[in-house]
C-alpha cells in the first residue's frame, strides 16, 4: 500500500493548450477517452466489413452498390471476388480482436477508471501512457493503409497461418505488401499494449492511496490488473513472432517456411523453417488474448451488478481467484487450437486436460454471479440489463467450450462455424455487452450527463435477441460440418445450409442497424442528456467520490483520499442510505464477503 501524501503535488501540471489537452495529453482520463474513440471507430469499421461479408455469404453474386469504390479489383461490377471476401474477413477479425476487444474494455475503461478507483491522481508513467495510445493508433493506421497499397490487405485470416502468410506475393493477393503491413501493424500494436500493461501493473501495485489494500480494490481494478499481467506476457510473445514473419518477407529468412515448397510451379527459395512454430507462438498469445478480451468485462459486469443488486458478491475473493485461475490456465490450454494441426497427437491429449479444467473457474464465476442475485434487490436499468445479458451470453458461449476441448470431437468441429459461434458468443458478444454495460454505467461520470434510458433499453432488447439470432445458428452450421472461411458454399453437403446463412445475414444487418440507436444516444446525450448527479447509481467505489463529473484534472480536486472500507458496502442496515462510500469515515458494521 502506498501513502499518496508523499505525492502531494500532481506529477504534471494541468495543460492549457489544445494539443496538450486533447491530442498529446498525459491525462489518463483523456487517454482513456481516446482509446474509447479508437475502439468506436474500429468497431464501426469491423461491423461494416461484417455486413459486407454476410451479404456475400447469403447471396454470393449480389451487387453491393458502391463496393467497387472501395476496391475496383476486389469488387468489379460491385460483386465481391473470392479473394476480396477473404481480405475483408481478415481485416474484420484483426480489427475486432485487437482494436476493439483489447482496446475498449481494457485500455479505454481501465485508463479512465483504474487510477481513480485506486485513489491516484494519474498513472505512474504518463508519457508511456500517452505513447501507448499513439502507438496503438499508428498500428491502426498501418493496418487500414493496407486497403490502399498494392493488391490490398492480406487474405490469410486473423490467425495468419504460415507459410501462406510467410512466402510472399506468390501465395495470393495481399500476401506481399498487405501481409507486411499486417505484421508491422500488429508488432506496433504489441508495443502499445506492453507500455499500457506496465502502467496498469504499476498503478495497481504502487499508486494505491492510503487504506486501499489489495482486497479493497473493486473487481474492475482486479480485472484490469490480471489482464495487464496477461498482456505483458502474451504480447511479448506475439511481437517477436511478427518481427520474424516480417523478416521472412523482407530479409530472405525462413523462420516459418519449410524447404521444398512449390508455388506456381516455382520452387521457393526457403529452407529449414517450421510451419508449426508460427502456430505455437501465435496461440501462446492467442488464447490468453481471449481472456484479455473477456476478463475486464467480468470485472466491469461484477462491479455494475453489485451496485444494482445493492449487495456485495457472495464472495469477492472467489471472483478474484477465479479470474486469476483463468489467466494462469489460459497459457496452458492454447494447444486446443492445434489438435488436428499435425503436432504430436499425444500433445493434444495433454492440452485437452487443462482446457476442460478451465471450465471450473468459469463455472464458479457464473455460479457466484447467479448466486449473488439470490436475495438481492436487483435494479433493472440499461447497464444492469447488459450486465445480465453478459452472463447469459457467457453461459451460452461457455458450454460449447466442452465440445472444443475434446480432441476427438474437434475432428468434426475444427475449423467449422461451431468454432466461430463459440468464440463470437464467449469472447466478442459477451465482451461487447461488458463494454455497453460499462458505457451506460460510467457515462454520467465521464460526461456529467445521463444517457437516455428508453433508448438504452430499446438498444439492449434488440441487441440481445439479435445477437442470439446471429450466433446460435452458427453452432448448427458447425454441427452440420459447415467449414468456416469459405466465400461461397459449393459443396453438395453445404448447399442445403444456405437458407440458414441468409437468416443470419438478415439478423446481422438488423442487429448492426440497431447499434445506430446506441451511437445516437452516445452523442445526443453528451450535449442534450439530463444532467447527472455526482453518484447517480448510489455506488460506493472511488470514481463516485470525485468532486465533479467529469472528474477534475487531478481526479479528487487536491483531496488526498483515504479508504476505510471494502469496495462494496451495500445493504447497510440502519443507515439512511443502504450504502457507504469507500472513503467515508463512518463507523459501520462492515458487510464482508465470505473468505
Amino acid at each position: 500500500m502506498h501513502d499518496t501524501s508523499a505525492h502531494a503535488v500532481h506529477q504534471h501540471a494541468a495543460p492549457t493548450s489544445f494539443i496538450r489537452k486533447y491530442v498529446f495529453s498525459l491525462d489518463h482520463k483523456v487517454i482513456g477517452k481516446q482509446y474509447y474513440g479508437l475502439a468506436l471507430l474500429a468497431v464501426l469499421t469491423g461491423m461494416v466489413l461484417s455486413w459486407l461479408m454476410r451479404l456475400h455469404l447469403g447471396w454470393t453474386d449480389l451487387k453491393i452498390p458502391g463496393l467497387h469504390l472501395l476496391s475496383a479489383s476486389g469488387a468489379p461490377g460491385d460483386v465481391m471476388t473470392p479473394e476480396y471476401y477473404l481480405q475483408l474477413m481478415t481485416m474484420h477479425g484483426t480489427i475486432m480482436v485487437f482494436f476493439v476487444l483489447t482496446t475498449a474494455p481494457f485500455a479505454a475503461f481501465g485508463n479512465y477508471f483504474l487510477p481513480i478507483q485506486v485513489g491516484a491522481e494519474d498513472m505512474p508513467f504518463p508519457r508511456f501512457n500517452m505513447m501507448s495510445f499513439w502507438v496503438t493508433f499508428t498500428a491502426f493506421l498501418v493496418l487500414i493503409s493496407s486497403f490502399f497499397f498494392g493488391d490490398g490487405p492480406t487474405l490469410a485470416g486473423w490467425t495468419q497461418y504460415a507459410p501462406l502468410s510467410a512466402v510472399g506475393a506468390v501465395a495470393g493477393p495481399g500476401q506481399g505488401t498487405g501481409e507486411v503491413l499486417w505484421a508491422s501493424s500488429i508488432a506496433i500494436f504489441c508495443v502499445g499494449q506492453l507500455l499500457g500493461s506496465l502502467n496498469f501493473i504499476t498503478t495497481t501495485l504502487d499508486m494505491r492511496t492510503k487504506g486501499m489494500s489489495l482486497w479493497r480494490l473493486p473487481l474492475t481494478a482486479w480485472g484490469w490488473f490480471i489482464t495487464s499481467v496477461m498482456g505483458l506476457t502474451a504480447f511479448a510473445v506475439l511481437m517477436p513472432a511478427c518481427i520474424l514473419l516480417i523478416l521472412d518477407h523482407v530479409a530472405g529468412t525462413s523462420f516459418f517456411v519449410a524447404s521444398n515448397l512449390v508455388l506456381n510451379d516455382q520452387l521457393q527459395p526457403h529452407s529449414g523453417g517450421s510451419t508449426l512454430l508460427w502456430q505455437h507462438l501465435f496461440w501462446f498469445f492467442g488464447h490468453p488474448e481471449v481472456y484479455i478480451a473477456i476478463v475486464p468485462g467480468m470485472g466491469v459486469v461484477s462491479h455494475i451488478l453489485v451496485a444494482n443488486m445493492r449487495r456485495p458478491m457472495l464472495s469477492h475473493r472467489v471472483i478474484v481467484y477465479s479470474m486469476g485461475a483463468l489467466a494462469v490456465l489460459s497459457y496452458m490450454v492454447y494447444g486446443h487450437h492445434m489438435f488436428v494441426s499435425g503436432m504430436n497427437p499425444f500433445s493434444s491429449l495433454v492440452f485437452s486436460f487443462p482446457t476442460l479444467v478451465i471450465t471450473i473457474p468459469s463455472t464458479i464465476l457464473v455460479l457466484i454471479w447467479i448466486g449473488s442475485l439470490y436475495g438481492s434487490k436487483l435494479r433493472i436499468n440499461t447497464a444492469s440489463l447488459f450486465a445480465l445479458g453478459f452472463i447469459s451470453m457467457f453461459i451460452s458461449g461457455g458450454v460449447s467450450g466442452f465440445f472444443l476441448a475434446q480432441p476427438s470431437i474437434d475432428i468434426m468441429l475444427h475449423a467449422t462455424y461451431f468454432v466461430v459461434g463459440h468464440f463470437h458468443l464467449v469472447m466478442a458478444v459477451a465482451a461487447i455487452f461488458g463494454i455497453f454495460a460499462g458505457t451506460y454505467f460510467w457515462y454520467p461520470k465521464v460526461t456529467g450527463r445521463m444517457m437516455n434510458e428508453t433508448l438504452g433499453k430499446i438498444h439492449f432488447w434488440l441487441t440481445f435477441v439479435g445477437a442470439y439470432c446471429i450466433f446460435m445458428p452458427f453452432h448448427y452450421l458447425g454441427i452440420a460440418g459447415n467449414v468456416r472461411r469459405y466465400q461461397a458454399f459449393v459443396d453438395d453437403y453445404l448447399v442445403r445450409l444456405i437458407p440458414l446463412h441468409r437468416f443470419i445475414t438478415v439478423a446481422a444487418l438488423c442487429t448492426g442497424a440497431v447499434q445506430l440507436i446506441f451511437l445516437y444516444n452516445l452523442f445526443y446525450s453528451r450535449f442534450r442528456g439530463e444532467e447527472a448527479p455526482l453518484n447517480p447509481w448510489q455506488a460506493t467505489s472511488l470514481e463516485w467520490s470525485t468532486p465533479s463529473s467529469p472528474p477534475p484534472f487531478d481526479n479528487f480536486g487536491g483531496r488526498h483520499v483515504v479508504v476505510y472500507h471494502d469496495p462494496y458496502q451495500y445493504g447497510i442496515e440502519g443507515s439512511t442510505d443502504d450504502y457507504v462510500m469507500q472513503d467515508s469515515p463512518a463507523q459501520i458494521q462492515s458487510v464482508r464477503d465470505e473468505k
Partner: protein
Amino acid sequence: MGKILAVTIILIAILSAVPIVMHTWNPPADVSTHGHLIDEQMSETMAEAGIAFLAGQILLAFFIWKFSNVQPGARIKNFPGGAMGLVLAAFLLVGTEVLALGVFGVKAWSQVYFTPPAADAMPIQVQAGQFAFYFRYPGADGKFGPLHPELVNEGTQNLFGLDPDHDPASKDDIVTAEMAIPVNKEVHLLMHSKDVGHSFYVPALRVQQDFVPGLDVSLHFTATKVGKYEIVCTQLCGLGHYNMKAYLEVMSQQDFESWLKKQAANQ
C-alpha cells in the same frame, strides 16, 4: 422489466435447444469404422453441455424474475450454502463432467491416432496444393517413387514431381484427381503439402487432419459403405480455398480394381 428479461432468456434457451433436440442440422451420416465413437462422444457431450446450458439460463432467469424490483425495505439474503457451497458444486459437478468427458474421449482419439495402421492397409499418397487434392497409388510394385519438388509442373501434368526416367519405382505410379478406395479395407493415407497449409476433411468419414508443409503426416481409416463422399479443405489456403475439394468414391473391391486399371491406362 426484469420479468420480461427472465421470460426472454428462457424462451431463447428453449428455442436454441429445439434444432439440437430435433436433429434439424446434422453432419453427413457416418461411414467409417471409428466414427461411431466420435458420434457417441458428441452425443454425450451434447447431453451434458445441454443440461448445463439450460440449467444456467433457467437459474439466471429465475433469480432475475424473483429478485428484480423487490420492495425497497426488503432484507438482503444470502444464497443457502453461500459461496463455498457453489464453489464445491462447481468442482464436483463440472469436475466430474470434465473427468468423464476427458477419459471417455481418449477412446475415439486413440483409435484414430494411437493405433498403427494394419500391416496390409492400402497406402495412398495425397498431395494438397492451391487449390486441389491429387492422389497417388503405388502401382503393381507396391512402391512410391521419390518426389522431386523442382520437377513439379502443372503445365506438363507432373503434379507430384516424379521422375520415371530415373526412378523405376515411379514408372507404374498412378496419379488421379479423384480418390477411390475399396469398401471395408483399411487405407493408410500418406499426406504432404506442396505449398501452404491445407486440411483433409471428410465429414462422412469422421476424419480431419491438417497438411503441414515440410512434414509428412499420415492418417488411417476404413470406409464401411459404398458411395461418393466429399473431401474438402478446412485450412485457409488462399483465394480458391472454398472450392478446394475432391470426391472420395468407396467401391466394392472388384469395382476398385477395374477403376485402378482404367486410371493406370490413362497415365
